[in-house]
């Protein structure tokens, strides 16, 4: 029963929260969406903390996504001991990097007094959950070796079953407590995104890459304004 709640109820709930919450927050409460950069108040430690943490965590997340999307490829790749070695080692290294990063970030928040005024309770929640996530991940890698293989062969089918709306808990129920914790905090993180500073990476500025540099916005679009069929119900002039 509790398993059903945690491994079926929770993932659907957090996905719903993530999708609807993020859309609503970005669309309707754009003002609240920001990376809340604290570099202005403290830059030197952030350099190491943020760069380590972000490069580590983004690559790790990417790894999980690749494993999820292409499990066959991962299994094929890891049948070769060298491939297995490369994947395991780099995943472990990235995890260590992100762990060092988040530790620097956390200590920075504790020891730099100026940052107290820009640290919210939700920030602390995020640190705790993220740190738990990274530490459980590392412990799993240490205790239950060749995670890349069994992630692809056992966990991915479970995640797929969730996506197909025919949840199959048989595998996940038999996992150790550590793995269960890792999965639960992962779901929690997804659910936290729209309610915390984590929203910042949902608005990653992809469009910038092909946007022209100068941006001019006209308050009045004379052309659409003066068309009589636009005056009611239709296209309202959209000023910034």
């Amino acid at each position, binding site marked *: 029963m509790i398993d059903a709640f945690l491994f079926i109820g929770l993932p659907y709930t957090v996905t719903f929260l993530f999708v609807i919450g993020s*859309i*609503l927050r970005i*669309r*309707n409460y*754009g*003002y609240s*969406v*920001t*990376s*809340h*950069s*604290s*570099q*202005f*108040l*403290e*830059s030197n430690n*952030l*350099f190491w903390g*943020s*760069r380590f943490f*972000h*490069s580590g965590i983004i690559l790790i997340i990417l790894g999980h996504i690749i494993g999820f999307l292409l499990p066959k490829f991962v299994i094929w790749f890891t049948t070769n001991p060298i491939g297995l070695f490369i994947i395991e080692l780099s995943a472990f290294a990235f995890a260590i990097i992100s762990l060092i990063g988040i530790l620097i970030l956390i200590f920075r928040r504790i020891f730099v*007094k*100026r940052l*107290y*005024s*820009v640290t919210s309770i939700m920030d602390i929640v995020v640190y705790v959950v993220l740190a738990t996530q990274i530490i459980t991940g590392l412990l799993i890698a240490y205790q239950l070796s060749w995670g890349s293989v069994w992630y692809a062969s056992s966990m991915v089918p479970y995640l797929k079953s969730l996506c197909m709306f025919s949840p199959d808990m048989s595998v996940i129920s038999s996992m150790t407590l550590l793995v269960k914790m890792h999965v639960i905090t992962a779901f929690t993180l997804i659910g936290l995104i729209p309610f915390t500073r984590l929203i*910042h990476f949902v*608005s990653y*500025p992809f*469009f*910038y*890459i092909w*946007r022209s*540099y*100068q*941006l*001019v*916005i*006209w*308050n*009045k679009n*004379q052309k659409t*304004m003066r068309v009589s069929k*636009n*005056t*009611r119900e239709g296209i*309202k*002039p959209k*000023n*910034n």
Partner: protein
Amino acid sequence: MDIRSQIAMVFHLDKCIGCHTCSVACKNIWTDRKGAEYMWWNNVETKPGTGYPSKWEDQKIYKGGWEKKDDSIQLKSAGHLKGLTKLYHNPDMPTIDDYYEPWKYEYDSLFEAPEGSDQPTARPVSLITGNPIDIKAGPNWDDDLGGSPDYARNDVNLHNISAEDKEAMFQLERMTFHYLPRMCNHCLNPACVAACPSGAVYKRGEDGVVLISQEKCRAWRLCITACPYKKTYYNWSSGKSEKCLLCFPRLESDQAPACMHSCVGRIRYLGVMLYDADKIKEYASCNEDELIDKQLDIYLNPFNEDIIRKAQKNGIADSTIEAAQKSPVYKFVKEWGLALPLHAEFRTLSNLFYVPSLLPVIGKMNDGTYESTSENLWGNIEETRLPLKYLANLFSVGDTNRIALVLRKLMTVRYHRRKVTVNDIDAKIVDTAFSETGYNAEIADAIYRLTSLVKYDERFVIPPAHREEAIEMLNSTDDHKGETGFGEKKGTRRVF
């Protein structure tokens, strides 16, 4: 040709008395908020000095603005790829220590301190941490050359001035300074706009005001690096960047921006310029020695029939064109050639022009005594106390001839007026001055008028914002007339 209109400004430095009324007016209206205390959208710097934030002009430190690359330009430290790699930590962003830590005083302790043998004091406490602090710097810490060894001597514009000249500048008797009021230039080629990955910073089409949408800003902070004038600021509390908005709500209701309206020295002028937006990229990418000529070239003659026709076709209102014809900025910048942009080498095509100050020119050292008289009525420009090169580094990309010409023009106006009012100088001197500068009595009188006598309406020629059409910006007129009082900003439309 893509003609647009732009609000531009002229600051007449000879008239600036350094009273900071402008800065305070701005602060009271816009930046007296949490996280914004350290922001001075408008500030007045003492030159020579290091400015605010400290040494902002040194792009080796701050990496702001554009740089020429082959035939084109690129942002020094931002841009599509360079920018996106800097999101997680931006090594070229100033921190609060480059400005100062804002504070207030514990005034309540003056009233509430328990009785004792000491006088109670009002200690300064940080507005960030709330703890008592030792104040290390504050706004205008180097005002009027205070702390010169640390500030004036480190002025970035002294870089190619000879050691003797530099030494001479700091001899007590020769020491001189002038004020440099600064604000966002609402550039034609704004680096802040180009650097913003979220598209939050934009230029308003109608009047060229550069704004940051607080809804769209995501605190990637690249505008702060990119602006070479360091006139975008990061609000550490709200996590959004902010900048001067040229008091657009005031402009729209025919009032001058607060800094300009309150200016005691009446040094500030504001008006419309018509310019050719198709030329921006090309002109911003030209060689350094052509920069100023090109920039002056981008502004179009609002009296030219052809230009007027094209402007009208581009949707520029007749009233705006009329305002452009009356623009005091057009007169100072284009007709009289008296005003120059600050640091044109940053290539943002700024719209704030300065009439350099003439006064430090007079007087010279003679056998260790300072003499304020000379055979030449106002001294001569080459013997200025402030090396010409210094002014040239500020206003003419190092070209001393250009700055000398402007100073000579200013001098000419004075010769002429002296002749008219006191009549103690030789008409020949005035005539020589006229022929050297291409001025005549009529022009000199007009400059004198616009410099000394003008009233509010002549200093600020604000194009009407057409309030009668303003509602069209937000709503359709058809809907609006039936819903007064019922309109909702967000609307009730369904999300999906």
